[in-house]
């Protein structure tokens, strides 16, 4: 109950070393393969989006449960809490994209820009792009900080007014998040192909984000159990996490199919130009995406007994997390790298760098404060949760 996560020296050393090694591998691989700066910046964008998504998905997880007055997740509350601490870092990393704009975005090139229609000229230009980016992150960081601050005050004082305040901020966050997560996906990912648009795009990315963060939450929960922490975790909590993974994987597949079916059926070249390269040049990855993100969680978690088994759920989560990385790859790489896009050493090593960084920041935040929240009005309910 009074568990305290200790960020052991072992991890504190291994993670930076692994990151440094990966960086060296990355640079060597990029230089040796002769691919230009486009590859570097594509990978930076891809991983920015993927890990930012995991962070934001965790914030969404917290906010939705707060607003729904849900209590079962209180036992593992600190896991998604700590995941959101990556946001400021993600902000800086996204700002760095400034130096790679020409390599990533077609519209950053002045010739292409002149060819755009009026509306796109107003929306897709470098100054406005970054102004919006600052606004998005400012809002996200602000609301999440406010939710966190009130949680911390609650831990110290057990005054319920902090609980009510964080509920209000959760609601405000959700409104702001709803609009900005869509808008940011249009800016950062959809505009990679400036002649194309899809109204469901923002929601598709949101769910991909959310499932990826659920996978991460499950994996961390598994890891913490393996390390001997979270002794109060019950199989009932695992069951609910598994149900969320199961349900939202199905929902992701539904959105994937809705977008695909409508564009396939309409048969309009300006829309199908999105799927043609992906389905015909990257066929394996295209269908692997669907397979890993839908078939695996669906059949892997359909039996009730599977959902109570943390090892099994964690295995499915690991596969699905990789699956959603592939999903992001398919969203970004075919545009930035074109037909040359591939998954090679640069991609894997860059992802490793980011993963090490993310986990380092996550563990550090997790070790500040009790592992199981104190004075939370739903804690007792969560400890006794039966599912």
């Amino acid at each position, binding site marked *: 109950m009074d568990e305290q996560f200790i960020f052991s020296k072992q991890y504190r050393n291994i993670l930076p070393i692994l990151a440094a090694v990966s960086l060296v591998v990355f640079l060597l691989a990029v230089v040796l393969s002769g691919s230009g700066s486009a590859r570097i910046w594509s990978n930076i964008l891809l991983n920015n989006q993927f890990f930012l998504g995991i962070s934001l998905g965790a914030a969404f997880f917290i906010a939705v449960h707060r607003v729904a007055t849900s209590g079962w997740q209180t036992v593992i509350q600190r896991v998604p809490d700590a995941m959101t601490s990556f946001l400021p870092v993600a902000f800086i990393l996204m700002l760095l994209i400034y130096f790679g704009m020409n390599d990533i975005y077609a519209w950053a090139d002045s010739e292409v820009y002149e060819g755009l229609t009026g509306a796109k000229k107003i929306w897709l230009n470098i100054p406005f792009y970054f102004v919006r980016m600052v606004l998005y992150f400012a809002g996200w960081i602000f609301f999440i900080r406010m939710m966190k601050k009130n949680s911390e005050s609650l831990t110290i004082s057990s005054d319920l007014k902090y609980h009510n305040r964080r509920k209000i901020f959760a609601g405000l966050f959700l409104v702001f998040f709803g609009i900005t997560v869509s808008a940011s996906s249009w800016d950062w990912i959809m505009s990679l192909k400036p002649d194309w648009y899809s109204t469901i795009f923002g929601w598709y990315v949101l769910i991909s984000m959310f499932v990826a963060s659920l996978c991460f939450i499950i994996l961390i929960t598994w890891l913490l159990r393996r390390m001997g922490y979270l002794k109060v975790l019950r199989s009932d909590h695992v069951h609910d996490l598994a149900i969320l993974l199961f349900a939202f994987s199905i929902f992701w597949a539904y959105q994937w199919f809705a977008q*695909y079916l409508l564009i396939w*059926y309409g*048969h309009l070249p300006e829309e199908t130009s999105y799927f043609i390269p992906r389905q015909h040049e990257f066929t394996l990855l295209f269908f692997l995406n669907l397979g890993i993100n839908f078939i695996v969680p669906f059949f892997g978690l359909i039996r009730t007994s599977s959902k109570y088994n943390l090892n099994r759920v964690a295995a499915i989560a690991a596969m699905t997390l990789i699956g959603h990385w592939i999903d992001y790859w398919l969203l970004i790489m075919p545009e930035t790298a074109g037909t040359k896009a591939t998954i090679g050493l640069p991609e894997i090593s860059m992802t490793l760098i980011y993963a090490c960084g993310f986990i380092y920041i996550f563990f550090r935040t997790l070790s500040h404060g009790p592992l199981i929240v104190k004075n939370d009005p739903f804690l007792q309910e969560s400890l006794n949760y039966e599912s």
Partner: protein
Amino acid sequence: MPYRSQKKSIMDNKDYISVYFDDEDPMLQALRRLKENNLTIIDVLTPFPVHGIDKLLSVKRTRIPVGGFIFGALGGILAFWFMTWVFTVSYPLIIGGKPFFALPSFVPITFEMTVLFAGLSMAAGMFLRSKLKPDIRFKPADERITDNMFVIVIGSNANTTRESIRTVLSGISIIEIR
């Protein structure tokens, strides 16, 4: 279960002892006590599903969901095969520029048929396995059960009588023993 085919209510049957409770907690207590004493419990009748009975009675998890999965898969395969046959073999037509084997188009109906078959088979499974059928001559064991009574039905023999049951369950609040 033997008494289900009988038209008379089990209350009339002298081979069964029925113990009545007005709350589920004493009933669960009694159930545990009776199990400890190795008494054969024929059935437990309650106004709503009570957590814990299944474990005490060693009720095996029903295989209805398995049946649902199998029939659902069957329905899906049937629907998909039929549409494929219609559009590629029976009467191929070019409609709206779509290919004959229009896989994405087939998905919605395949999905619906899967769900339909799965749902109907599970409901049918429930009715068949529990032997629930409309019967205007049906008489329940006791009309208070669906209201607020919890009843444990025990098989009676030379060793198990109403008095012996009463002694075994001493200390637990019982409404009556029939």
